[in-house]
């Protein structure tokens, strides 16, 4: 029984780490959907390129796999560069792939998103190659503090750091959306684009801003996964995008807090399903839960029932 309890606690730690990453990715999906009512399928690729940007930052700041400056600065720089690259990429995608199609039927936007996704994946394949890039992280964190034991539950420093950073980013986003002027404008645009425009909100700028923030968070997730699981390649965006999208739908697409919750729930469910069933069924369990939620609450856990516009 004791062993079982330990295992469950450990799974909570595992699930929370993965879940917080899913949450970061889900936010990007949900913010774009909230304003444009489109599924930005290129978001997984933005995440992947964030991972590559982080890898390059680490690579350039290391000699023989040992960082040339303080590890805290290196990690901060990795995150800043990854968020910058992904944020800019998101803005570019919006400008060239989505804005020209804003008046077109939704299906065209969706196809454009798929096209961007394939384009980015192949671009990375061409310029970075197919081989996996390894994050040499072991010298970032001294041996003595790399893992903690509480009872028999193991906490690695990197996990704690990742959870801490994701929650910080989510808290910042929450404050921004709730308290600042631009946050208010975002909420207004999401609620009714035309009315917001009448009230003097520059809708175009808000949309660009949403892409910037959502993509930057995706890029941060890519780098955090690299720090945690130490690998990135051109194909990681697909799986991550799928999970992020699932988390967004689970939480109620369009709702930022729903996306955060959805991500964490998804991560926890996957980890716990491994203990209770076979690991082969973890995705099955996760998707069964998604389907059940959608049957009883089609608008997701936190989503609002929006009356159909006529």
């Amino acid at each position, binding site marked *: 029984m004791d*062993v*079982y309890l*330990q*295992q469950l606690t*450990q*799974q909570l730690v*595992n*699930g929370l*780490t*993965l879940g917080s990453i899913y949450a970061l990715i889900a936010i990007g999906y949900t913010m774009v959907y909230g304003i444009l009512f489109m599924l930005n399928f290129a978001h997984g690729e933005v995440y992947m390129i964030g991972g590559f940007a982080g890898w390059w930052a680490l690579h350039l700041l290391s000699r023989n*796999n040992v960082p040339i400056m303080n590890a805290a600065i290196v990690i901060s720089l990795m995150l800043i560069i990854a968020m910058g690259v992904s944020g800019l990429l998101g803005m570019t995608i919006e400008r060239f792939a989505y804005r020209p199609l804003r008046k077109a039927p939704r299906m065209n936007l969706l196809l454009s998103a798929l096209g961007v996704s394939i384009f980015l994946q192949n671009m990375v*394949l061409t310029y970075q190659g*197919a*081989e*996996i890039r*390894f994050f*040499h*992280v*072991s010298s970032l964190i001294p041996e003595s503090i*790399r*893992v903690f*034991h509480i009872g028999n539950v*193991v906490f*690695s420093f990197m996990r704690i750091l990742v959870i801490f950073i994701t929650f910080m980013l989510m808290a910042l986003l929450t404050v921004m959306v709730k308290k600042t002027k631009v946050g208010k404008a975002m909420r207004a645009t999401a609620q009714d684009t035309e009315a917001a425009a009448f009230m003097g909100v520059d809708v175009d700028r808000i949309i660009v801003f949403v892409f910037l923030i959502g993509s930057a968070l995706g890029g941060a997730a890519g780098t955090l*996964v690299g720090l*945690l*699981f*130490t*690998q990135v*390649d051109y*194909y*990681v965006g697909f*799986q991550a995008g799928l999970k992020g999208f699932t988390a967004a739908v689970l939480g109620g697409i369009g709702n930022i807090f729903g996306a955060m919750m959805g991500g964490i729930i998804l991560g926890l469910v*996957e*980890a716990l399903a*491994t*203990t209770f069933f*076979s*690991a*082969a069924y*973890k*995705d099955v369990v996760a998707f069964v839960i998604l389907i059940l939620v959608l049957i009883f609450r089609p608008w997701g856990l936190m989503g609002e029932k929006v009356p159909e516009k006529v």
Partner: protein
Amino acid sequence: MKKATLLFFLLVVTGLFFSAAGYSADVSKGIHVGNAGAFTGDAAAPCMEIFNSSQLAIDEWNERGGIQGVKIKHIMGDDAMDPAQGVNVAQKFVSDKLIYGVVGPPMSHIAQATLKIYGGANLVCITSAASKPELTEQGYKHFFRVNARNDAHGPNCALFMKKQLKAKRIAVLNEKVAYCENLAKETIKALKKLGITDIMQDTIVGGAKDFSPVLTKAKAFNPDVLFFVATAAPDQAIGVRQAKELGIKATFFGTEGARDKKDFIEASEGAAEGAYVYHFGPDIYSIPEAGSYVKIFEKTYDVLSGFGPPAYEAMNILLTAIDKAAKDGDISREEVRKYVSQTENYKGILGFPITFDDKGDLKGGATYFFKVAGKDFKQIAVMTGK
């Protein structure tokens, strides 16, 4: 009138006869050989090693003047580890009438998906890595392998865990693909025969980058040995790293894909120290006949992981057969297939003579075991089923 009809009929029959007999051509039109594998994706590194080693063999043949004065052309078919793309590659190869043989596919699930296409066209395939037993149990005559089958590796791995690692409790984690599932199944069967019954089995998802949940479960089982059955070295590196992070005390025992210095030892940043892996090929550096191959390969390409030598061997066996078939200036796929099947006591660089049995399998079949020491693998044991 009657005569004309008869003549026409005869013509049609002869035409049919020749088309049924297969395409046969003048050698001087060209000789192509295919190489099917996952040259992009997670297994790109070992597959490129296979391709480059085959290329070396071809270069050597071409330097010696080719076959009947014709330079051999090497054609790459990338399946990206996806059976659907593997089928496309097979169709492309089959329709290229100048391809007389194929090296690969190295992955069991791709080999399985393409058996019918290559078999239907009588195009000989020599794989250097696909080890799923059923591949040679389906009556196809065109499929050969220079590597041992899973059902040889499984019992050998079981023996190794019992005799060398003195294991009593074993956790087996396997990826959900043909090669890994079979190996896990065969190993567990053999372990039970050896009297080891404390076994836990669960699955991992390849390329998922996070195995902590399933490793957490394995930790609770408290095994002596963690047998980690995954295709690609990067996944094995994550496995060994996360096992260490979780404080799993069990000996890590990885599969053949892990025998990769860069993607396993270096990628795990020290976590792999003391881990064991098995491989179907011996330590190539210890075989004198392989000296020149190793030297040229490492000069031209990169460090060897172990996937290259069998591919070099497979390509040489294929080219030897093509050479025999082309002796009379005329060549057909059936001739090449026949000569490959007659391969007996071929002495190449693998350190043991190669003979194919009726099914196309290697006669005999050994499994080699290595321990990670520093930045390299050290061969510590060979098991041959006893």
